[in-house]
């Protein structure tokens, strides 16, 4: 069958740095096609070129056999390509119907929007997905899962021939994932192609027909999903040999199985709101405790409650033997806690400021001398960290925004290490950094723990959790539901623990 979409030799540069170098992608009609690759492999750039958001520097795209030159999302939509982005591209303040029909509203007399028809059409599509909601209510009043399905409903109402889904399940629970899969199968059976981008490899084996793997801006290969294994895919993404991974492990976090005695933090049945309702855990010196769970299970909320970002509505915490209830982050910092947030851009770096100023931001109160910043001490400290962590920067006064993602992350890690915390909370510490930087960051974490400090590690990458953590607290719907202890922490055990509670939760 002739392909619905064929992209070949796609090249794209950003400020002279190649993001794509001869990438290609081919999708047949009615096919569910997976696109995988590590962060920074070029998946989203490829999608944005396909949807007209970026202009390609080179290469050919043909759509249903015709050469295609899409220059805007609007044109892509008209050409039958609908995209459901990870950050939902919908308007939460407006009604469900509006979000579905916007741009192609049913009209009477060619002018007036026919609202009853719009509502009816929206209800009809959502009913196909098994959803019955008030379509006149603002979209923002519904759960993320519903919003996601509304985005798909929008694609369906636009008569899309190709639906691109970017990490569609990252914020869904397993029952919602099943509904989504049902919708994907329905699309497939009605001849619509789906480009499915996901980090969750298991999902691909459930619903995809073919898979394309990307690495470093290039297409590594395309193959039928039935003829491949998970290990093969991981090896292809990392550019490593499958056998090597099986023996060596994937991360630098391994090691350190000593027993721990001194409790540094004890959390008892805390809650901050609907997403963290009953959370307990203990943390010892020298220990890495992983928080396991799917997105939305309350991992980040647990971290925020420890750091004083969200206030407790119940429960208590004990830090180094004393009652602990931080009113705000600065209180938590004074008490010896650091929190590396998951969103580096929104909650981490101050883009205009230099590496130096970013690095010492949390340490400022300690650098006060005669009402001023002690610049001599600051420069020595920063130079020390740049050397110790191998931060690649032209000089310490270079704006942080000019650094690569991995080096930005190292600066932020140094921001917390500089405060000499007893406890570091790391939320997705290696997300969006290249493989090399990832290993370096992991070994920094390891040596921090070996000095007798403690780490709470949140990661969506099971390998990182399994190999790094001495214990894993498994979370589900805002509770800590079970705990895995070494020995006995394996990826299988973690998946089972999660799966078990997913089932029990229903």
């Amino acid at each position: 069958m002739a392909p619905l979409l064929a992209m070949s030799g796609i090249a794209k540069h950003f400020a002279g740095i190649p993001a794509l170098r001869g990438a290609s992608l081919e999708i047949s009609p009615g096919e569910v096609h997976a696109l995988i690759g590590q962060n920074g492999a070029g998946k989203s750039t490829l999608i944005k070129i396909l949807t007209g958001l970026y202009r390609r520097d080179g290469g050919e795209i043909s759509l249903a056999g015709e050469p295609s030159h899409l220059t805007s999302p609007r044109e892509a939509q008209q050409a039958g390509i609908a995209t459901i982005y990870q950050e939902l591209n919908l308007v939460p303040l407006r009604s469900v119907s509006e979000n579905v029909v916007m741009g192609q509203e049913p009209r009477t007399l060619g002018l007036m929007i026919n609202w009853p028809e719009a509502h009816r059409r929206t209800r009809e599509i959502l009913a196909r997905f098994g959803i019955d909601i008030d379509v006149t209510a603002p979209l923002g009043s519904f759960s993320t899962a519903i919003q996601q399905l509304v985005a798909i409903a929008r694609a369906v109402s636009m008569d899309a021939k190709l639906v691109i889904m970017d990490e569609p399940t990252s914020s869904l629970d397993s029952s919602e994932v099943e509904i989504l899969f049902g919708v994907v199968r329905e699309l497939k059976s009605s001849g619509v192609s789906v480009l499915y981008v996901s980090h969750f490899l298991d999902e691909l084996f459930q619903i995809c027909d073919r898979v394309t793997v990307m690495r470093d801006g290039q297409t590594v290969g395309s193959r039928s999903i039935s003829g491949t294994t998970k290990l093969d895919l991981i090896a292809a993404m990392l550019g490593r040999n499958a056998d090597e991974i099986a023996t060596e492990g994937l991360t630098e976090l391994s090691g350190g199985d000593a027993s721990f005695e001194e409790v540094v933090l004890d959390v008892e049945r805390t809650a901050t709101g609907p997403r963290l309702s009953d959370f307990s855990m203990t943390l010892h010196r020298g220990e890495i405790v992983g928080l396991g769970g799917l997105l939305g299970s309350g991992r980040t909320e647990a971290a925020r409650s420890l750091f004083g970002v969200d206030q407790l509505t119940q429960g208590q915490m004990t830090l180094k033997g004393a009652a602990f209830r931080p009113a705000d982050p600065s209180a938590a910092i004074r008490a010896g806690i650091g929190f590396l947030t998951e969103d580096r851009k929104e909650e981490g770096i101050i883009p205009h400021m230099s590496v130096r100023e970013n690095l010492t931001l949390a340490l400022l109160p300690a650098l006060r001398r005669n009402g001023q910043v002690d610049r001599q001490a600051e420069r020595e400290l920063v130079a020390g960290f740049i050397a110790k962590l191998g931060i690649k920067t032209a000089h310490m006064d270079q704006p942080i925004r000019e650094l690569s993602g991995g080096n930005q992350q190292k600066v932020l890690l140094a921001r917390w290490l500089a405060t000499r915390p007893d406890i570091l909370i790391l939320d997705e510490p290696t997300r969006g950094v290249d493989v090399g930087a990832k290993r370096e960051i992991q070994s920094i974490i390891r040596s921090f723990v070996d000095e007798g400090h403690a780490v709470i590690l949140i990661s969506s990458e099971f390998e990182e959790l399994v190999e790094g953590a001495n214990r894993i607290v498994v979370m589900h719907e805002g509770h800590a539901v079970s705990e895995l202890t070494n020995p006995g922490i394996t990826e299988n055990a973690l998946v089972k623990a999660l799966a078990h509670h997913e089932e029990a939760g229903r």
Partner: protein
Amino acid sequence: MTSLISDEPRRADLSTRLKNNGGLVALAVILIFNIVVTPNFLQAQTLAVNISQVATIAIVAMGMTLVIATGGIDLSVGAVMALSGALAPLIFQSELGTAYPVLGLVASLFLPLVAALACGLFNGTIIAVLKVQPIIATLILFISGRGIAQVLTNGNLQTFSNPEFSYLGTGKILGFPFQGWLAIAIAIFLFWLVNRTIFGRYLLAIGGNERAAKLSGGPVRKVKIGAYVICSILSGLAGLIVVAINSASDAARNGNLMELDAIAAAVVGGALLQGGKAPIFGAILGAVIIQLVKYTLLANGVEDEVALIAKAAIILAAVYIQQARKE
């Protein structure tokens, strides 16, 4: 390692910074134009007139720069000027003020600034604690601040003769107007505050990325309130200077449209509207450019009204260049 600690990269920055700073170039162009074209431009009298007029804009613009650095805006500066300017004559012309002239003078300098401080506290609290958008929050005092000043004075023009008080606007030290010295002193202090102190570091961090600053333990509320308080106190001071220059206080006109001049000066001086930068001397440069453009046009027989259009063009050009450079 030593190269990392040395100041070398800073010096390299300075030349690029000069290259980037169209403001200085613009200033040079205006100066040369005036020297060639405008009669009597290089006389001490002209200089004094321009300095005494630019000082008030510069003082308010520096405060505005701090507020803009947090990503905010303060529309109430003109109203605060009117309020503090209305209070001063009321105080030294009161019964107590005339009975004890020294006390009256001190109080008439001090109390209006306290009132201005209260205005800043009000703005800052609404913005930082209640999280109301700065444009709206400062709109409240923009509307009612001048109203309060007019209620206090019953809308009357208050004229007075008080040489001690008027020194603020007419005095000279070494032939240079007093308020010019004052503006320079304030600039030096604020430069120190922004570039050397922890407050300054947090100020820029909050403007650069408020959430990140908060999560790094930054006292976001205090710093934001601080910026608005400083801006208001400086506006109050500017209001006193205007009253001192005129030996009269007119609540309806004192500081009228000053918010526009101050914002324009701050932006021309290089303040980023989205926050994160506080070029204090840039604000002075911006104020000087705006004043000189106004003066140039007037001195060469161009009508006052056309000067407004010129000011509009300057603002647009400055921001456009700023945007273009960012992208």
